[in-house]
């Protein structure tokens, strides 16, 4: 099975991320209506939580879209079979604070509206953000080695 390239696994994932980004953008823009519709349809949450959830979803949704967009950029370079470049280091450095800010928002949600799933998501984003920071340094080292190798004749 081909992993890298347009027709490989990375190509399929890039397409999936494109769909997630477009879908996410649609939900983000229609949040005031879609959240109201969700609350009215499921009755899982009361109307009194509407404003808090709206602010919470706008905040986390924005940074989620940033993460998905940066991942799309990384996968685009993977499809070109050239992942070790400074742009990817910068993308990972942008993903890290975005993920950590989402984690902070979920920690705030734990205080006000705690659920078991909220704790799990907060932990996932903390680990994800820190991993992105480490990966950015790994990519940075790889870029240095690649440049050295490219300039060895």
């Amino acid at each position: 099975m081909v992993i890298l390239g347009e027709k490989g696994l990375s190509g399929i994932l890039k397409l999936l991320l494109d769909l997630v980004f477009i879908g996410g953008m649609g939900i983000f823009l229609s949040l005031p209506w879609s959240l109201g519709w969700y609350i009215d349809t499921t009755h899982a949450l009361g109307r009194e939580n509407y404003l808090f959830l709206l602010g919470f979803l706008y905040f986390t949704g924005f940074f989620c879209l940033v993460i998905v967009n940066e991942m799309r950029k990384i996968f685009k370079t993977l499809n070109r079979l050239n992942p070790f470049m400074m742009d990817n280091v910068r993308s990972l450095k942008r993903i890290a604070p975005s993920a950590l800010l989402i984690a902070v928002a979920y920690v705030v949600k734990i205080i006000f509206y705690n659920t078991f799933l909220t704790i799990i998501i907060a932990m996932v984003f903390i680990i994800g953000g820190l991993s992105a920071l480490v990966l950015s340094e790994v990519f940075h080292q790889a870029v240095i080695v690649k440049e050295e190798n490219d300039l060895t004749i």
Partner: protein
Amino acid sequence: MPIIVNLDVMMAKRKISSSELAARIDITPANLSILKNNKAKAIRFSTLEAICSALDCQPGDILEYVPDSSDIQVASDNEEV
């Protein structure tokens, strides 16, 4: 970088063009250009061997050590100590 590649001098002496040398030593003209313009960070022994063989010369004819001004300053400071 204090190591200077004097490849173009040797190529002029042997009257050989860049493209011809690149073909003889089996590297791309782009890589040969990097080498000629002192942009390379390192040179493989195999490449050096191929260049010396193609130009019938010694590595010292191609590579030259020219100390940086900062290196000269450090050396003179050490002598004073």
